[in-house]
């Protein structure tokens, strides 16, 4: 599929690298020749230098034959204009990054409709939502929901004192009396899709799916349930911080934001009446302590610099803040930060590339059983996908134990009539079901791809 991406910043590069890896024909547009050169050196994509809102540039990039057009420059207005022009020149689907709160708060639907956008993406908002979800369940390092809101996938680290450590998977469900499924295990850099005979160890990072209620029950009986974080310190007054503070205020949490730019502080103060905004350099540890870091339930580092976020998060963790979250945009950094002891990280660029990869796969496969939701798990080594089963096929009506599935595939859940089934060998997939599949090392486009 032919895809054009305008703007090769952090987000743009993350998107084009994952879409090129998916095997799409990607053309990257940026107005800086040096950036275009650097991109084409590293990724197998074509580069065009110019403005995304310039007809000649767009035509040179072959906009008329493009199925997907994504504008993710730093400017919302340029993104909207590029998408509008691209749509008029023949691009089938257009996606613009619109992140300014002014556009997002009220007029987004109107803009989207009038500009003919297929979708608008707001990495900062999505990152804020992800942080919010984690703050609701502080035991998790990552929590994702599917179209059935109460069904979630959660990742957590097993510490040495965890009751899971040393246990066989087949014994777990009885012992804890909750309905859940462990789908993935990451151990020293390798990812497994475990079966019943798998034994967990301390130091593993596990991914499990369950209904929210069951999950709470499980975490309680494990003794690691934490109450929702109420007092939260946010470092950096970025857009992500704005969205997060707004959402947190809505659920009644106490938010304190530290930002070093006075003008940004002012505008945050205006738009977030309930939050406490501190003007000062948050990289100074004195200021953090003065603002009560040690008494906080959670510390969230959302500055624009990955390095700052990592270092200050580690500092906060060393001060025994119960939950520490760092925003990290570069994938390489995330692995490194994990090695030096940072557990929870949120990456806007990864969230957005998940969204676009899902969108592109669904476009390619609009006739079969398309991908409804997609999450990368365990740093991209595995994927969780939600499919809607459209009509009868080889898959439907066959007991799961008789389905010839490929290796590295796990059917994690089936939803039927708004109820979830934790699948056993006797269960069958029926038309109209929603199926959640965990796949390791494969890129599924259609539900039928799970068959050998």
């Amino acid at each position, binding site marked *: 599929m032919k895809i054009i991406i305008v703007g090769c910043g952090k987000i743009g590069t993350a998107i084009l690298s994952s879409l090129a890896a998916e095997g799409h*024909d990607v*053309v990257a547009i940026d107005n800086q020749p040096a950036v275009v050169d650097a991109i*084409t*050196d*590293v990724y*197998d994509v*074509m*580069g065009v*230098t110019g403005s995304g809102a310039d007809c000649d540039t767009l035509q040179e990039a072959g906009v008329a034959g493009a199925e997907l057009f994504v504008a993710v420059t730093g400017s919302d207005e340029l993104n909207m204009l590029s998408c509008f022009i691209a749509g008029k020149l023949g691009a089938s689907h257009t996606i613009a990054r619109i992140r300014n709160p002014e556009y997002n708060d009220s007029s987004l639907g109107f803009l989207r409709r009038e500009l003919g956008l297929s979708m608008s993406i707001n990495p900062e908002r999505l990152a804020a939502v992800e942080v919010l979800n984690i703050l609701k369940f502080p035991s998790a390092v990552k929590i994702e929901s599917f179209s059935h809101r109460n069904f979630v996938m959660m990742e957590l680290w097993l510490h040495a004192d965890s009751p899971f450590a040393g246990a066989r998977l087949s014994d777990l469900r009885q012992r804890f009396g909750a309905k859940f499924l462990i789908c993935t295990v990451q151990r020293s850099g390798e990812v497994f899709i475990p079966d019943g005979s798998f034994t967990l160890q301390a130091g593993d990072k596990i991914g499990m799916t369950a209904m929210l209620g069951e999950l709470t029950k499980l975490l309680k009986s494990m003794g690691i349930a934490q109450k929702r974080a109420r007092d939260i310190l946010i470092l950096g007054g970025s857009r992500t911080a704005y969205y997060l503070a707004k959402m947190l205020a809505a659920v009644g949490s106490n938010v304190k934001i530290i930002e070093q730019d006075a003008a940004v502080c002012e505008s945050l103060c205006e738009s977030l009446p309930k939050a406490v905004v501190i003007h000062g350099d948050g990289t100074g540890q004195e200021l953090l302590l003065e603002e009560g870091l040690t008494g906080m339930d959670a510390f969230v580092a959302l500055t624009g610099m990955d390095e700052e976020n990592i270092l200050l998060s580690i500092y906060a963790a060393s001060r025994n803040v119960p939950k520490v979250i760092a925003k990290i945009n570069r994938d390489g950094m995330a692995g490194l930060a994990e090695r030096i002891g940072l557990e929870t990280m949120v990456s806007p660029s990864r969230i957005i590339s998940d969204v676009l990869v899902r969108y592109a796969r669904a476009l390619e496969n609009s006739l079969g059983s398309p991908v409804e939701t997609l999450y990368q798990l365990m740093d991209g080594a595995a994927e969780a996908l939600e499919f809607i089963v459209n009509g009868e096929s080889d898959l439907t009506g066959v007991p799961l134990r008789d389905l010839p599935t490929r290796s590295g595939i796990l059917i994690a859940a089936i939803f039927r009539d708004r109820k979830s089934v934790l699948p056993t060998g006797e269960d069958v997939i029926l038309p109209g079901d929603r199926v959640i599949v965990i796949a390791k090392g494969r890129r599924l486009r259609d539900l039928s791809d799970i068959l050998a």
Partner: protein
Amino acid sequence: MNRRMIVHTLGRMLQLEAVLLLAPLAVALLYREPFVPFLVTAAAAALTGVALALVRPRTHVIYARDGFVLVALSWLFYSAFGALPFVLPGGIPHYIDAFFETMSGFTTTGASILPDPAVLPHGMLFWRSFTHWIGGMGILVLCMAVVPSLSARSIHIMRAEMPGPIVGKLVPRARDTAKILYLIYIGMTLVQIALLCCGGMSLFDSAVYTFGTAGTGGFAPVASSCGGLSPFLQITITVFMVLFGVNFNLYYLLLIRRGKSVLKSAELWTYLGVIACATGAIAANIAPLCATAGQATRHAAFQVASVISTTGFSTTDFNLWPGFSKTILLLLMFCGACAGSTAGGLKVSRLVLLVRMLRRHLQKMTHPRAVGTVKLEGKVVGEETQRGVTNYFALYALLLGGILLLLSLEPFDLETNLSAAISCFNNVGPGLGAVGPAASYAGYSAFSKLVLSFAMLFGRLELYPVLFLFAPSSWMRK
């Protein structure tokens, strides 16, 4: 440096050469000639290839330096193995001679050590010209087109092998770009074979002449090159020599119906303009030697097209022409054809850039505060690329001087040595004096033949890959 990846890819390349050797094998079988040389060589290449490919790379990531070294090594190995069929009974007795001939083939030079190629059996003649065709578009580009993706960063390989100051892709993926280039190449080759057949040439000769034209190589199956051909055939070959010297990107633009951008190409117009002017000047200069003005123009056009596209065919012994015509031809050898074509030489786009940079520099000297840019094909050329062009030019001059110095140990006159160095370095083929179109390189010593072989490789790969291959820093563990 990712040595494992280089060795592994080299293995795959040799396997590909083994497959390519099946073509002359089939020709030899068809003409009931000894086919053992090709069988043995193919087996040797295949076995070595499989052995090298057993080395598993730990990572597929390659950088610019790996790309350069890989390309240079591949060409060396291809020539080393490609020379084997000639050495086995019935061909060229000395390995150095065979190596020179094969290197001359792959680099599309067309310089030969055979006074009369007609003594070779059909299979060997076919292989000799087939190397032109393979080398024309590039062996790694071929590998990229047929072998599933070598690496996401294969642009480094492409850049090392494709000629020209700026190498871009036609379509987003390097592999698809390679495929498109080869499809255009194959299409044009087939058209020319068909036209030559229509002109009354046998299928075998058509193929051999076409391979020589398409790769802008210049090996002919007879000593008289194109001298014995009918005017129709000579004109057809002239036109195709010019066509294969055009940037292939322009053909792609034509195919996707963006003809307007083709007409705006400054490089194309300069190229055609130079051909027209040189033809006119030479035709006027040699008119007294020819029977009619038409004949003079035909000979002039053929020789100009042959030299500027760095093919090296000839219809007449231009060694006997007046000094003015010979000098024009010698200068055209430097010029070469368009970037992104199968031709050698400095490339027209580099010369256009050099002239424009020079103009800008002169302007800057008279108006020190003037602000200006250098443009090519409507786009501003960055400082980096401009520096690249001047550096290339300097390196080119230095290397040419070095080659000339090494050749001057031979007992030939300066005209012969100078033209031999220029001709081989620019992948043209015939020179002047004792290496003129009617003579061969047989008189040179083994040492000089090796020097010239590397001169050809330097010229075909545009200096840097071979330079990095020999640079000790490439091989240090750093």
